[in-house]
């Protein structure tokens, strides 16, 4: 997942002349393409191991709330994806020759919030697509259209941060991210029962 993410960043940095004026404008988009693609790789495998070996039945038999399984899986996916993102970030900054000054923490906040939204819905959908004929294809088809607000907010907020804009300019996007995160964690938590029942 990490190597894939780094490769996407590297390949995209080949497509622009070094020091070209477009590099800076395209950088946020490239970063988030790398993150969403590698996140998708990770999410695809959230449930595949359990379903293939049949241990999903064991997990479902456990005398706990099914929502807890969902939250556990979500937190697990989140940690993986967040680590990959944090490791990719220095490479990204070096390869695209970006100057963040003291805005590094703001960028990490955006990545943190967007990743929560991404895995919250992604984990739920992953539990569905693992039962379809074309697992790897179906997840992006379901997830990408629903993810539009998150990706849009993340790319634009990242763009503002790279331009070293004021905090107030980013606040609107943060609001959208937080609203999305809250709405979809609650909704996925509630509907997860219907997805895993046998």
């Amino acid at each position: 997942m990490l190597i894939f993410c780094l490769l996407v960043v590297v390949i995209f940095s080949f497509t622009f002349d070094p020091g070209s004026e477009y590099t800076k404008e395209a950088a946020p988009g490239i970063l988030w393409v790398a993150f969403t693609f590698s996140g998708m790789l990770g999410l695809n495998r959230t449930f595949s191991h359990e379903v293939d070996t049949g241990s999903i039945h064991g997990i479902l038999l456990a005398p706990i709330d099914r929502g807890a399984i969902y939250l556990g899986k979500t937190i697990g996916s989140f940690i993986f994806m967040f680590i990959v993102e944090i490791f990719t970030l220095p490479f990204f900054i070096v390869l695209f020759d970006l100057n963040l000054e003291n805005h590094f923490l703001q960028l990490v906040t955006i990545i943190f919030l967007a990743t929560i939204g991404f895995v919250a819905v992604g984990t739920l959908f992953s539990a569905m697509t693992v039962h379809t004929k074309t697992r790897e294809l179906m997840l992006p088809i379901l997830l990408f259209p629903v993810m539009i607000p998150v990706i849009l907010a993340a790319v634009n907020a990242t763009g503002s941060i790279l331009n070293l804009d004021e905090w107030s300019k980013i606040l609107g996007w943060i609001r959208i991210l937080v609203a999305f995160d809250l709405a979809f964690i609650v909704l996925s938590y509630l509907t997860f029962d219907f997805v895993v029942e046998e």
Partner: protein
Amino acid sequence: MERTTLLRKMQLIIGVLLFIGMLISLYNVFIMVPTEKKMGIVQRIFYFHVPSAMMSFLAFFTVAGFSIAFLVKRNLWYDRVAVICGEIGVLFTTIALITGSIWARPIWNTYWSWDARLTTFLILWFIYVAYLMLRDYVGEDERGARFAAVFAIIGTLDIPIVYFSIRWWRTLHPSPVIAGGEGSGLHPDMAYTLFFSMIVFVFLFLFLVIARLRVENSRMILAEIKRTHILSSN
């Protein structure tokens, strides 16, 4: 068998009303209503564009409603209605997107712009195509119905967030002419034509739903006949 005859009768009645209504509506749109001053003849596509867009919203709200009903009651007929409305919703969304593009070419000088409403509609289209694909690819009937219902609920709640996030980004679509702010408003003939066309589209919607329900009904009867036949031949 009762359901079969009931559906056939309903389809016949609605079909006749739809046929008459469609003729009147076509007369209204192409002959009766005055041509808009600034946009000219192309504005007439408005009477197909707006009702299609409205019908796609109606269809998708029905999908969400029946999906929730299915998850609560577990009646497979609710799921059938949801899928049917999903299919018809995709159809109307496609019509709305195409007619909108045709209108936009002479008026905005471009087929497409990344405006909030256009983009939201495009995303809506993608979400419901994904919904139909998911329904198909799961295979098992009951499980597919559950998954599709959950996805429909998530997709429906996603639409307002998509809309607001894109509106933050940029917007160009003309502001709503019905119940809009100051300076908006329609010539009475235009309002009448639009209203009539809207009603005709509701009938078209109902007609399509009933036609599809008849197909589903026949499919269920066929499955029943197959089952009893296999049982009796053993």
